[in-house]
């Protein structure tokens, strides 16, 4: 019996791993997605996480001491990158895209009657606009009220306690688990196609003419794909940790409890294999099964915070995300990589994934027609 199971697993693994399309779908596609989308997201993340420098042009129309001091403070601020002012009208400077902000210190600024003027490019990001206004306001207050360092004064009033990067993952923290999960759910395509192909060409029926139990044949179908799922995650992790660091500024951080990846990956692989078995059982043709699998996986990814980080989804989609098993899988990994959650924090997500797997296997068991 063990020998038969071993051969069933070996046969399935050989067939799957020899198929170039399957290799591309299960291994190359997620690696490519991780590579390109991490790079694409890096620019956005740089803004959000490290605070890209505010690029602006300063136009000082006053020769007063305070105006010069404000100009100096603006240009010296570490959050600001002051650009040389082109010999152009403000509107033209903004229209040319050289900067998104022109700061004009008018004549008579020191009297308090002529405020500093901020010319924003109309399509500027709202968060960037608020940050720039807040910074220029602080510097103007320092100059006008003769405060040397307003931020030091404010630290007595406001203390920031937020732990860094606990809500928004870095590009790699987002993409590595996200596209590993995405690809793991795509296992349903080769699994269902393989099952239906065996039904159509009679090899499955032929197996039943040997003294092999249905349970063994079932295990012989499930175990190989479960193993492949785990291999997929390991490969994505290796790409994230060892390869992507050469292409991206934020290295992949595994968190404080990386061992938790083991139970999480086992639970995710159970959910993805269960989903694949269910698709194989309900699909009537190979075309129907592959379409159903692909469409379901993409929809689960859209809702589950795979395509766009859950943290930045609108409120309605954030609530809808709970219907996607990919959401629970991704959040479980983010608990490890991002939030340093204890196992008790990860466990509820594992329970949801396990329930999803059990439901899928149950439906498959009820619907499957071996012959």
């Amino acid at each position, binding site marked *: 019996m063990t020998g038969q199971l071993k051969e069933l697993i070996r046969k399935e693994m050989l067939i799957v791993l020899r198929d170039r399309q399957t290799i591309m779908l299960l291994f190359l596609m997620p690696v490519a997605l991780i590579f390109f989308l991490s790079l694409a997201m890096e620019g956005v993340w740089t803004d959000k996480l490290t605070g890209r420098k505010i690029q602006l042009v300063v136009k000082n129309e006053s020769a007063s001491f305070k105006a010069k001091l404000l100009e100096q403070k603006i240009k010296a601020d570490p959050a600001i990158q002051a650009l040389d002012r082109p010999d152009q009208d403000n509107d033209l400077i903004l229209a040319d895209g050289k900067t998104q902000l022109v700061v004009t210190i008018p004549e008579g600024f020191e009297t308090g009657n002529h405020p500093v003027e901020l010319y924003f490019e109309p399509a500027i990001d709202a968060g960037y606009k608020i940050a720039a206004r807040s910074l220029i306001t602080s510097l103007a207050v320092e100059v006008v009220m003769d405060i040397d360092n307003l931020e030091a004064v404010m630290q007595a009033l406001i203390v920031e306690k937020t732990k860094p990067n606990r809500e928004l993952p870095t590009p790699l923290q987002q993409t590595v688990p996200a596209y590993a999960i995405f690809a793991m759910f795509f296992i349903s395509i080769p699994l269902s196609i393989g099952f239906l192909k065996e039904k159509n060409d009679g*090899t499955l029926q032929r197996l039943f003419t040997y*003294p092999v139990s249905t349970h063994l044949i079932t295990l012989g179908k499930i175990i190989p794909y479960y193993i492949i799922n785990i291999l997929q995650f390991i490969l994505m992790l290796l790409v994230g940790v060892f390869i992507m660091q050469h292409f991206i500024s934020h290295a992949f951080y595994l968190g404080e409890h990386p061992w938790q990846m083991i139970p999480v990956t086992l639970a995710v692989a159970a959910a993805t294999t269960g989903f694949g078995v269910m698709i194989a059982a309900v699909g009537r043709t190979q075309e129907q099964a592959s379409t159903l699998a692909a469409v379901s996986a993409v929809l689960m990814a859209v809702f589950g915070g795979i395509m766009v980080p859950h943290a930045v989804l609108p409120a309605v989609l954030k609530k809808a995300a709970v219907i996607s098993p990919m959401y629970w899988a991704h959040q479980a990994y983010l608990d490890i990589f991002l939030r340093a959650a204890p196992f008790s924090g990860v466990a509820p997500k594992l329970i949801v994934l396990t329930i999803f797997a059990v439901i899928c296997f149950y439906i498959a068991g009820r619907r499957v027609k071996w012959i």
Partner: protein
Amino acid sequence: MNALDISAVTYSYGNKAANALNNFSMSVAPGSMHALVGPNGAGKSTLMRVITGQFRSYAGRVTIYGRTMPDRDTLLSIGYAPQPISVYTGLTAMENLLFFGAMAGMPKTRAASRAQEVLEQTGLADHARQLVSTYSGGMQRRLNLAVALLHSPLLLLLDEPTVGIDPQSRYHIYETLTALNAAGMTVLLSTHIMEEAQRLCRAVTLADKGTVIYDGPMSEIDNLERFFLEKTGRGLRDD
């Protein structure tokens, strides 16, 4: 004791009103080569699947060398080559044979030596390490037969073993079957090809619409095709 006894077997596919097999009875003597002939819808493939234990919810009785089916151990007395070429095209011929050998519970070394023998028997020894997806139709059909022979069954069930292949492969299969039968293997051959059945088999069962309409020695039939048309009619059977 007959190699195969089928007694009053009735089987119905759940979604169809008529029975696929209706009170079907026939016997195959040990050491014989027996033809099972009938038009489309006669129930030949259904009968094969009943004998091999794929369909179990039937009425009646099937015995193989005196043992009532379905029975796990008795399955090993049967070698079955289904009508569709039921081998894994993503594996080599040798890998297919070793896999099915394991399914038959054969030790690895025994399966390997038998695999070599059946590959030689079916003219595939030179292509043993080639992926089956690169095989021609005739080669795949011969591998389909090789798999059925691997575990040295007493009773060989062949469902249209020569359909869709070139004359050379067909001739090779005929030669192989004749040699196996001469060596004592019992063969039940389901076929559409009358000339094939008449040339190879000593007994014939003619079936139509799930029932037996003739069961007897081939020697009593002068021209099987004419006999077949007389018994089953000349109307088309497209359903």
